[in-house]
């Protein structure tokens, strides 16, 4: 990356020596320190980093929309010879939305719910007073059509809540591109979306970029998305750019130990399904403290004494490639670094021994059969008034599933598939209409709470949001001993129990007196595990156990869960939409679609040879963290239909590339194949 004053003509945006501080009660957080990189015209540039890396701060800084407690302490951002950091508010406003536009992370909250898309898009065109309103509307309709919204002329008059998540994000892209900006910023554009939607949005962005000759900056923590979409990549860690380069250089020949470790930690890259996942030990450093030397040194496996007190050099490789590390140049240059790609540079904590395949099948711990859960959608009076016949939707339809002690079952599905409802029904938190739920042979479906309460000790739940599910007013000690109090268990020393549990989940004792907001995501997750395991349950239901965790720490939680399982013989039901993760931890997989299990079988077999077209679409839908394995086409189009109008035949028929007349007419029954796999498909793949 050239740092001289002259700018290459292909540079659209040049960020130079940008530093941003946040004033907080704990002191000044130096969120960005001396960031420099150019963004080349007509390229898709990915900024990748974990939480706290400052990747979003870069984005907001160049829009001039940083939080009020932020302060730009130095630097310039040159956009076509204008310095955006020193532009007036009016100049910035003229640039925003016109020349630089944004696609936001969460389309559910970033579009105002009380205005139609027509109004929102007309507002964006407000700087064209000469343009008649009808013409603005025509432009908006055309753009909505271009991003793939069917029937845009009608849908433009709808409100955001009429759109599904994927459609909202398409509309968000249409809004951003309406004015024909030169630079499009995308902040985690697919993080809030399902796998099949994610693939569609990635391809839409790629196609539009080519068509409109725009320059795109994508901020993401998702290595698969970056590899699939981007031309250039900037890797950030703790407020610094530690490596930059073209996408193939980064993914195939990473120079910085952090980049290398990050890639190794991504479960999607690891083909060897060992029980242990690699992790980068430690946490991101405290950015309020002054630092010396390399910012990554405390966590680096290759750290030398010099790394801790001498600032590492920026070692340039090509025109815009660099990596910031002592190993690459200077007196500490190590010619053997980086090692070949098949050598792991990060450890897994312990030897990665896979748990032996279980031969004898125990009696199942949990046995669910033909379970049906319905939700009432309209009241009886309203149904009568409006002539609605079916007042219920099937959230869970004919589900059968069993979990043996010591077994991990992954329950996979997109949002709205009923996987969380199923988990809650098993815990008797949602009433079921028919079927049976047996726990250790005893029927527990719709058991009265008074009788069920003692059994709750044996069944624990780990909730999705690690911090949000902890009371902010209780200390960690109180939180992890709360289960004892809920169940009125006396005669134990709560302090001893707290220490035992903290040790079990490898949480330092000092953390017992902290409060949830003082914990990092991974630490809060450990507290969640400790709470769930406090009463020695036999079954643990984990709802998205890695949601909100960085790649480098999610391995720690999964390894911890695997250790505890090996030690205590726990049965796990893992509810998730994250296929790469579940592939590493689950013995068996159940794929849910619209409340039905469409395929069930051993994880390795399901991944190797999916039988149901939906499973295949999910497996192929995960973007691969390898730029050479980009997909040429989107394997699945359309969206999950609403439960309110469930298709008559196979639920998946409307989106299935292999659907035939039979599929649209008749619901396929559950079939068990010779090898024990189950599926619900009229025309199973490969048969």
């Amino acid at each position, binding site marked *: 990356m050239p740092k001289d004053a002259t700018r290459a003509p292909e540079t659209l945006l040049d960020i130079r020596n940008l530093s941003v501080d946040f004033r907080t009660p704990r002191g000044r957080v130096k969120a960005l320190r001396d960031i420099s990189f150019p963004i080349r015209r007509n390229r898709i540039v990915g900024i990748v980093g974990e939480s706290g890396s400052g990747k979003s701060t870069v984005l907001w800084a160049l829009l001039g929309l940083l939080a009020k407690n932020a302060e730009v302490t130095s630097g310039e951002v040159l956009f076509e010879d204008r310095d955006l950091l020193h532009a007036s508010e009016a100049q910035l406003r003229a640039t925003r939305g016109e020349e630089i536009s944004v696609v936001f992370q969460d389309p559910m909250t970033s579009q*105002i*719910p009380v205005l139609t898309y027509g109004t929102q898009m007309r507002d*964006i065109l*407000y700087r064209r007073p000469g343009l008649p309103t009808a013409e603005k509307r025509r432009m908006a309709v055309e753009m909505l059509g271009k991003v793939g919204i069917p029937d845009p002329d009608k849908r433009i008059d709808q409100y955001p809540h009429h759109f599904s998540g994927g459609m909202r994000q398409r509309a968000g892209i249409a809004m951003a591109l309406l004015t024909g900006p030169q630079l499009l910023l995308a902040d985690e554009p697919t993080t809030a979306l399902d796998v099949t939607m994610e693939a569609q949005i990635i391809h839409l962005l790629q196609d539009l970029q080519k068509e409109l000759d725009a320059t795109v900056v994508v901020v993401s923590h998702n290595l698969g998305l970056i590899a699939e979409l981007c031309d250039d990549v900037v890797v950030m860690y703790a407020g610094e750019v530690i490596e930059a380069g073209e996408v193939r250089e980064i993914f195939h020949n990473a120079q910085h130990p952090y980049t290398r470790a990050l890639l190794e930690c991504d479960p999607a890259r690891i083909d060897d399904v060992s029980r242990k996942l690699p992790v980068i030990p430690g946490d991101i450093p405290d950015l309020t403290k002054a630092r010396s030397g390399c910012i990554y040194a405390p966590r680096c496996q290759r750290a030398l004494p010099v790394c801790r007190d001498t600032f590492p050099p920026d070692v340039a490789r090509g025109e815009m490639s660099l990596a910031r590390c002592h190993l690459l140049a200077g007196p500490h240059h190590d010619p053997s670094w980086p090692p070949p790609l098949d050598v792991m540079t990060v450890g897994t904590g312990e030897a990665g021994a896979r748990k032996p395949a279980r031969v004898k099948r125990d009696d199942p711990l949990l046995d669910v059969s033909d379970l049906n859960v319905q939700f009432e959608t309209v009241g009886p009076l309203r149904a009568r008034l409006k002539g609605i016949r079916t007042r219920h939707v099937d959230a869970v339809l004919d589900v059968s599933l069993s979990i043996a002690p010591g077994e991990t079952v992954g329950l996979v599905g997109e949002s709205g598939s009923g996987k969380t409802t199923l988990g809650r029904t098993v815990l008797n938190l949602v009433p079921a209409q028919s079927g049976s739920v047996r726990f250790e042979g005893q029927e527990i479906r719709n058991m009265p709470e008074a009788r069920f309460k003692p059994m709750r000790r044996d069944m624990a739940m780990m909730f999705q949001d690690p911090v949000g599910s902890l009371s902010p007013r209780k200390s960690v000690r109180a939180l992890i001993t709360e289960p004892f109090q809920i169940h009125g268990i006396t005669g134990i020393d709560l302090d001893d129990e707290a220490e035992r549990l903290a040790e079990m989940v490898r949480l330092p004792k000092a953390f017992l007196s902290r409060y949830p907001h003082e914990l990092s995501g991974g630490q809060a997750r450990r507290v969640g595990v400790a709470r769930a395991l406090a009463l020695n349950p036999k079954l643990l239901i984990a709802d998205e156990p890695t949601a909100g965790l960085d790649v480098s720490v999610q391995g720690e939680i999964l390894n911890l869960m695997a250790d505890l399982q090996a030690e205590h013989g726990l049965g796990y039901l893992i509810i998730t939409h994250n296929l790469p993760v579940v592939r590493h931890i689950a013995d068996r997989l159940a794929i849910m679609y619209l409340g039905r299990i469409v395929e069930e079988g051993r994880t390795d077999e399901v991944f190797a040879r999916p039988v149901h077209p939906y499973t295949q679409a999910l497996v192929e839908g995960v973007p691969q963290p390898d730029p050479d394995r980009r997909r040429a086409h989107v394997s699945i189009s359309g969206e999950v239909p609403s439960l309110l109008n469930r298709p008559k035949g196979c639920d998946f028929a409307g989106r299935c590339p292999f659907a035939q007349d039979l599929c649209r007419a008749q619901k396929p029954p559950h079939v068990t194949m010779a090898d024990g796999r189950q599926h619900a498909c009229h025309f199973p793949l490969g048969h």
Partner: protein
Amino acid sequence: MLYYLTKRLGLSAAVIGLVVLVLFSLLHLIPGDPATIALGPRATPEAIARYAEKMHLDEPVWRQFLIYIGNALTGDLGLDVFSNRPVTAIIMERIGFTLALVCAGMGWAMLLGIPLGCLAAVKPGSWLDRVTGVLSVGTIAVPSFLVSIWALLIFAVQLRWLPAIGAGEPGQLGDQLSHLVLPAFAIGLSWVGYLARMVRASMLEVMGENYIRSARAFGLHPQRVIFGYALRVAILPTITLIGMGFGGMISSTVFAEIIFARPGIGKLIFDAVMARNFPIVQGAVLVATGLYILVVLFSDILIAWFDPRVRESL
């Protein structure tokens, strides 16, 4: 929407029925025979009997209740004990004064309170925000009857800018308006504070939402962001508050109308209670309840008009 209106109107009818029941039971629970009260201690037994028959007082209580409901539905709320005039007519004469007072009081509170809260929220910590904060607490804390008396003393007695008592000459709009100023100021003052605080709090919350950041990232003009986007969402809880505030204000009119000697429902109820003139009390409270229910219904419909999500869930 139709379903919603049906449901709401049904609920409103139930509330009004309950109010009538309570009012009716009160009459029968307090000591004393209504006929004796109405006719005075020196009435002859014949007169009392005649009165009791005319008023259906000899019927069982439940029949009396049904008769009252039936009459009320046809607009007949009974006769004033003293003047023998229909209660409905007496209320109708005065209701306009009360409605004008309540609308004027809430109106000026809204015109001042909502923009103040809005501006305070846009620049939290600015001098305007601080002044608004102090003023809000001040106006909420001071009881409105004290404000009424002080306003009367200062502007009517000392400065002689505005008339002190009455509602003005009938037919002269200017005179009637000048008589409205002081009472409306008195009952609206604390609402300036309430509304400013409420709007400020919900504006602060909405200004932190992602969609406001989106609007700013698309380069929208700050005025459009604040009034077209943020306020449109932030006003929703305030509408509910204003709707309920109307109900509260109908009761504040009691002292305002007494202190400023204005005709109106509040003063009517007060006088009727003092004179044990129960048909008037019953009728006036019923009308006030009906008004309150109507305003709350209206504010709910207004929210539905502002918020498509609410509209469609109706």
